[in-house]
């Protein structure tokens, strides 16, 4: 597989982190002392939280940093028990070259309150051998007992200038020709998310020698998920059979969750080519079936019932 630029241009050391000076300075001090407390990193997507955690590990442990970290993702580990077991296995042995190992728990705000309570105990039990870096978008979703055990670092959103710097760095590294309006377009679309920046750049560079605003917008629009709007249009045009098939594909083949699909449907209603009054009605319906899913209904049946409502749209 091709090399992913988001990975290639990920900062290797704390010095390479863009912006986030207030955070980086303190983390550097930790690296120098060879000791860190439990940490909580919060901030928007793509501003460098995971990158900082990995860079910190790199600066702390040198070449052997990979052996001394465990990366976990709260949204992928099924349940706190699995997390606990993995932590146990990892933290049971002491690191040879360091006082402790680092456990990075990404998307910690995906854990329920109960799971967080259990996590708190786990953190206490392994303090001798491991430090936790919890990463989340919103620190308010982390229970207070955990917050109080951690040094909290808030990552700032990136300014346009920072994004531009990052674009230029990749452009230089990859020998890209990119116009000024191309850069502006990327800045606008990426909304300060560097992961998005590198992905748009990489996709744009495939077919185009020169990256300008047109190319960037084209790539961005193609990368937008179209399945949901296709599905809705089938239903609006009275082809319920195809709408239903599309839904089955999204749920069963692509493995999307009902929650994700309904979120996307809600978003798409605004841009449908139907009377405003109908949009209001459909949003109301969307809310109702969303609620029914929460209440214990199955995503499949509830979403089908919602799709059926689109058959009724007055044009």
């Amino acid at each position: 597989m091709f090399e992913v630029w988001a990975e290639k241009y990920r900062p290797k050391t704390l010095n390479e982190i863009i912006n986030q000076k207030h955070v980086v300075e303190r983390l550097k001090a930790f690296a120098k002392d060879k000791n860190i407390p439990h940490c909580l990193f919060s901030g928007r997507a793509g501003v460098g939280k995971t990158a900082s955690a990995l860079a910190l590990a790199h600066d702390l442990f040198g070449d052997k940093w990979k052996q001394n970290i465990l990366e976990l993702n709260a949204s992928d580990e099924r349940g706190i028990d699995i997390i606990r077991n993995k932590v146990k296995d990892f933290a049971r042995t002491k690191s040879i070259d360091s006082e402790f190992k680092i456990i990075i728990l990404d998307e910690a705000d995906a854990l329920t309150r109960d799971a967080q309570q259990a996590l708190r105990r786990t953190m206490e039990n392994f303090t001798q051998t491991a430090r936790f870096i919890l990463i989340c978008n919103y620190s308010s979703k982390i229970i207070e007992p955990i917050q109080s055990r951690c040094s909290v670092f808030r990552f700032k959103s990136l300014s346009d200038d920072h994004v531009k710097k990052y674009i230029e760095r990749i452009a230089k590294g990859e020998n890209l020709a990119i116009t000024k309006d191309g850069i502006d377009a990327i800045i606008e679309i990426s909304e300060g998310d560097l992961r998005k920046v590198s992905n748009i750049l990489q996709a744009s560079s495939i077919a185009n020698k020169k990256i300008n605003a047109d190319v960037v917008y084209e790539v961005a629009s193609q990368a937008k998920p179209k399945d949901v709007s296709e599905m809705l249009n089938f239903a609006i045009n009275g082809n319920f059979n195809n709408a239903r098939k599309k839904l089955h594909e999204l749920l069963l083949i692509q493995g999307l969750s009902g929650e994700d699909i309904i979120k996307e449907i809600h978003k798409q209603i605004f841009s449908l080519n139907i009377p405003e009054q109908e949009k209001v009605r459909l949003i109301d319906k969307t809310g109702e079936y969303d609620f029914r899913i929460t209440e214990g209904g199955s995503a499949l049946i509830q979403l089908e019932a919602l799709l059926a409502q689109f058959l009724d749209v007055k044009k």
Partner: protein
Amino acid sequence: MLVEKYKPKKVNEIIGQKKAVDIFLKWIRNWKPGKKALLFHGKTGTGKTSLVQAYALENNLDFIEMNASDFRTSEQIQQNLGHSIKQQSLFKKGKIFLIDEIDGLAGREDIGGVKEIIKIIKESYYPIILTANDPWDPKLRSLRTYCQLVQFDKINVWAIYKKLDEISRKENLQIDQDVIRQIAKTSEGDLRSAINDLEILAAGKTKINSENLESVGFREKETNIFEMLKIVFKTNKIEIAVDAIQNVSKDPEEILLWIEQNILNEYEKPEEIIKAFEALSRADLFLGRTKKRQNWKYMKYTIDLMTGGVALSKKQIYSKFSRYQYPDIIKNLGKSKAIRNKQKEELLELSKRLHCSTKKIKEFYLPYFKLQDNSNNFHK
């Protein structure tokens, strides 16, 4: 219905049950008031009811059939049967009683039920036949001493095949021998379901080959469910629709998927589709509540809404023949599971490499990867 049309009218038309028929005939010829009743047991569709019915018809007897599960109390048994077993038949030479599903009787609240039935057997002026799914049910112990047990075996495949062949010739069905053989085989000795299968396949199509067989998802035996779908979609009486589910040996969750699959095969008007899916949505919601709270009292609402609710979503009954299908969801579950597992594996691999969750990979990376590499595995 073919099943009705080809119901045996004489005892010698009963197929595949020679032993049971002989016992029955010997018993009834010697029957006098005070003698034992017969207790028929065996699979459905093997001819238990048909035998008694055919005999009644042949001998000009009143055939009185009731279902034991209708009797909630011993008083009700007395009311329903007490007089009848002693009265003379008005128009016929005599009477014969069939009480179905005797093991549906009893339970705690009608503790007197079995006793009452025994009393009926002792006092009756007319022969009584009982049927049971499980004659060895402990609660029937005392009843068994007043009954002679008659076992109805599964009807053998060859006999079923011959019967189906005969029907299809009389009905002028253009049907491959292979298909008939397949139906006979999958019926597992249940002649009624086999004839129903034949009818479902035959209706609407003039030429039937094994492809049709596949199109209705025949591999697994789904006779009853097709019958049920037909009833639900072709009635506008809530009770009939709700009752239709009684004989289906699938759990409501699966039946819901069968109904889901076939709404579009029956209903054509948007308002009907909307209404039907709304009913299904409510049914599904109660199913969720049932499971969530482990409280089965909500299940009845699920059943009522998914059958009655869907049935009453139509404006008029469609007179067309609808071909009902096996649910896509169930068919694809295994297949899509394999695909999903493979995707999951690849996602986890990427997740490790790119230091973020699979959810983020799907959201932030995959759309761009697809643009770069069309042969990428994630391109569905």
